[in-house]
Structure formats: structure tokens, C-alpha cells
């Protein structure tokens, strides 16, 4: 507990700025509450009824006053709006080059998956002083990833990727809560975020169960599901080659085109019919239900890698 009493730890780069705003609003709240209360008490004493039949003379009201106490709150909220929105906007977008971790929520546990392949449950290990971006999704209902000490929170929705980012500024273990009601053990869907020195973190990644990288895992899934039968590297297959697709504009059969991002790839697997690549038939089967969210994430990671490493032909699918 540092800073003020009754203040949660400040363990991320944004915590302090959020708290400043928080304190500012607190000050406003106390100011007006005390103001109103004290005026009321003052009047109650000063103008208490002295004789049962006294008849104070009427006061119409006063335009200047009305304008004044319309203007003051307006100004205050204007300040609040600009301040809070700019802060929020800043915190909404992860800084470029932040390391990425994938999180899936599930009644009632948190699963984290590091690109290097480390998997953990209800724990999240992160290095100190490096911006971390979480790409999150849920296998069932809506959950919410909430780390009070970092002042970050984001709902984790099924069938969709949401993301948040933070940069830890403090070593130690912090609460991880599920802040969106998700059923019987909502209260039990808690874990801890463990902030380590970067080199310790590297060791931690290396140590423990030597899980394969997500990319490798993805390649395996790719093989197991016979994706390769249609997606052949040289594009001669029933489906388009997936080399160099990720991150690029993909022309669609309806004349539009979309950027092939995580979401698009995900959709292509689960709802193939939604967007048809130009020049191909909508024959790709949906893998909805056959792939767990983690497998999908692995595939996404794999197809990403195909997108980046143009210089690795004949890789894809062929084994």
C-alpha cells in the first residue's frame, strides 16, 4: 500500500494517471457534497420557523443564478470529459512492439498462452517494464479480465477477440479478477499476475514444461485437420495459398476486400461462408466446434508466421 490509504497499489504505467483523475473527481464530489450539506444546515438554523404563522415573502428565482449554476457544472464536466477521454484513448491502443500473450476465459478459469508455448492457468507471468498486449477470447460466456493494480479491465467475449495492454512497473504478485458475472463460480474465477525481472521471465519461459511454440502447435493442428489438402503453398489447391496472406488485403468475391487480421482468420475457420475469397468457391467446411479456442489461436499464430516469413515456401500443410 503506497500513496494514499484506501488506494489500490499502482503497479502499471497508467495507474498513476488514472488515480490522478480519480482524485480530482473525488475532490469535486466532496466539495459539492460538503457545500450542499453545509448550506442546507446553515439555512435550517438561520431560517428555522420562529412563529407558527410567519409567512416569508416569495422569491421568484433569479436568472443570473440559474445561469451561474448551469455554467459551473457544465465547465467542470467539460474538463472531466476531455481529461478522461484523452486518457482513455491513450490507454486504449497498445504501443507498437508490445509483446503479445493470448488469454482464453472459460467457466471458471483463465488460460494464458505465451507465443513461446508456455501455457498457464489462473496465473499470468509477465516481465517488468515491457508493454504487454493481451489478445483475449472466451470459450463460453462473457468474462472480464481485471487487474486492479494495473487499472486495466476488458470484457472477454465469446466468438470475438478483445485486447488490452499494460506495462508493469512493479515486481510482485497482483490480483486477477473476473469482473463480469459469469455463473456459479464467478467469484472463483480469480488468479494472479506475476511480474518478474525480464531475465527471470526469460528463464521462466525456457523452464517448466517445454511446450512447443504456438506456431508449431498451430502447424500440427493445421496438419491434423487436413487444411493442407486444400491450402497448398503454390496455390494450386482448392483453397487459396495461405502464404503471405496475413496482414495483407484480401480481395473478396463481392468486390470488397478485407485485411487478413486475427479476427479475419478466425472467422475464416469458424464461419468460412461469411467472406469468400475472390475466385474461390465457398466449399471450406466450418471448423466451428471442432477446434478449441486455443487451437484456433494456435492456427492464427501459425498462419501469421506464414504471412511474415514469405521466404519459406513448400512449408505449408505439406509434411
Amino acid at each position: 500500500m503506497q500513496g494514499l490509504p484506501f488506494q489500490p497499489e499502482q503497479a502499471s504505467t497508467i495507474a498513476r494517471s488514472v488515480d490522478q483523475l480519480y482524485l480530482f473527481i473525488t475532490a469535486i464530489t466532496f466539495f459539492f457534497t460538503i457545500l450542499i450539506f453545509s448550506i442546507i444546515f446553515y439555512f435550517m438554523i438561520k431560517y428555522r420557523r420562529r412563529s407558527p404563522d410567519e409567512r416569508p415573502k416569495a422569491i421568484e428565482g433569479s436568472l443570473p443564478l440559474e445561469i451561474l449554476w448551469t455554467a459551473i457544472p457544465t465547465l467542470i464536466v467539460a474538463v472531466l470529459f476531455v481529461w478522461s477521454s484523452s486518457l482513455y484513448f491513450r490507454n486504449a491502443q497498445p504501443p507498437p512492439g508490445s509483446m503479445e500473450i493470448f488469454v482464453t476465459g472459460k467457466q471458471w478459469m483463465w488460460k494464458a498462452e505465451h507465443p513461446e508455448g508456455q501455457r498457464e492457468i489462473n496465473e499470468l507471468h509477465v516481465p517488468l517494464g515491457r508493454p504487454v498486449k493481451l489478445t483475449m477470447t472466451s470459450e463460453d460466456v462473457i468474462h472480464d479480465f481485471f487487474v486492479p493494480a494495473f487499472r486495466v479491465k476488458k470484457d472477454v467475449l465469446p466468438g470475438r477477440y478483445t485486447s488490452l495492454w499494460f506495462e508493469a512497473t512493479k515486481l510482485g504478485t497482483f490480483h486477477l479478477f473476473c469482473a463480469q458475472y459469469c455463473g456459479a463460480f464467478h467469484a472463483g474465477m480469480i488468479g494472479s499476475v506475476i511480474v518478474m525481472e525480464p531475465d527471470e521471465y526469460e528463464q521462466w519461459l525456457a523452464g517448466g514444461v517445454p511446450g512447443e511454440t504456438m506456431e508449431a502447435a498451430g502447424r500440427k493442428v493445421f496438419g491434423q485437420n487436413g487444411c493442407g489438402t486444400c491450402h497448398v503453398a503454390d496455390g494450386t489447391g482448392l483453397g487459396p495459398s495461405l502464404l503471405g496472406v496475413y496482414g495483407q488485403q484480401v480481395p473478396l468475391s463481392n468486390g470488397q476486400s478485407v485485411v487478413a487480421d486475427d479476427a479475419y482468420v478466425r472467422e475464416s475457420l469458424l464461419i468460412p461462408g461469411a467472406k469468400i475469397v475472390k475466385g474461390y468457391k465457398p466449399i471450406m467446411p466450418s471448423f466451428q466446434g471442432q477446434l478449441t479456442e486455443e487451437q484456433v489461436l494456435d492456427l492464427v499464430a501459425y498462419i501469421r508466421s506464414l504471412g511474415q516469413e514469405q521466404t519459406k515456401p513448400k512449408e505449408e500443410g505439406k509434411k
Partner: protein
Amino acid sequence: MPDVHAEHAQIDHTGLAHQFEDLDQQQDADTLGIWLFLVTEIMFFGGMFAAYAIFRWLYFAAFAGGSHILDIRLGAANTVVLLASSLTMALSVRSAQTGNRRALVVFLILTMILGGVFLGVKAYEYNQKFVEHIVPSLDWAPEGDVLARLAPGGLNHAQLYFFFYFAMTGLHALHMIIGMGLLFWLVLRARKGSFTPRYFAPVEVVGLYWHFVDIVWIFLFPLLYLIGGRY
């Protein structure tokens, strides 16, 4: 709908309820009441239209595909039927105004019949959906030609379309049925001769309701049958 002209303990032969000063005040209140009620109906359907608007925008291909499965001729025909019923309804009100009891009864019955025809056609269309196995979640297994036409937009999204089709037309049909019940009640009262050129608020009010239901269909027709052209 607001039970206007409450048959209050103290209702007198002119149909004036005790809480009102005179018939004009009462009729003012009645019309205002029913219009307010219609506004709540607008919002009721509005919520559904909002949902519809969003998914139509997101999954346009699927919605167009689904829309093209529907029989546009039946849709158009039903629109005509319903408009006709609106006409007869308007004429019933008019006969009430002119105090022509026989005409009133006849037109009310005509309106009911037309309403019945509309529902009949709808029932037939619903049945078709079962035949074609395109009833979301209850009987969803499109095949052959239907499948081919739905596939491009994605079957799941097509299912959403048909959910909206059934939900919207179903709610509308429900309103029709309620309306016909009210019409029946009017017929009974009209034959008893409880309506005079001075007092016919119930006819007017039910009329407004019936026209509103008609208007809802006026929108449902293009929104469900005419998505993205038939060319």
C-alpha cells in the same frame, strides 16, 4: 390496448364515463390514449427493427439470400389484402359516423374476413418453410436449390434472417389476431346498436389500431421480401 370509455359504474346512456366532464373531453382522452398506445407499439417493434437493421447490415448477403427464398407474389398479394381490410375498416368508422348500423356491421365483418385471408396466406407460407426445412432451430436442414441459394451468405446467417422473418411476421400476426378479436367484439356491440354518430369511440379506436397493424406490414413487406432486388 387502453380500455377506453371504461364502462364505469357511473356510465350513462350516452356512454359518458363519470370521470369526464363531457363527451368531447372523453373522446379527446380516448384518441390521445390510443395514439400514445400506438407510439408504444412503434417502440415495441422498434426494438426488433433495430436488431434487424444491424444484422441486415452485417450479413447482407445472407439476408438477401433468405429474402429471395420467400414468395414475393404471396407477399405482395397479402399486402393488397391487408390494405383492402384497412379500407373496409375506414369505411366502418365512416358508417359509424353516419349512423348507418347495417353498413357498419357489414364492413366490420368484411374487415375480419380480409384479416382472416391474410392470416390464411401467412399460415400457408409458414408451412412452406417447414416443407423447405428452413425454420431456424426447429427444423433447419435446407437442401437442394434452397441450400444453394442460402449457402453464399453463410447458412448460420441465413438462419438469423429466418429467425427475424418468423419473429417479425409472428408478432405482426399476433397483433392481427388480437385485432380480429376486438373487431368481433365491435360487431356484437354494433348489432346491439350501442354506437351512435355522437358516440362511436370504440370503433374509431379499434380502427386506429387496425390501421397501425397494417402499417407495420407495409414495412415488413419490403424489409423481408424485397432485400437486394430479385434480378
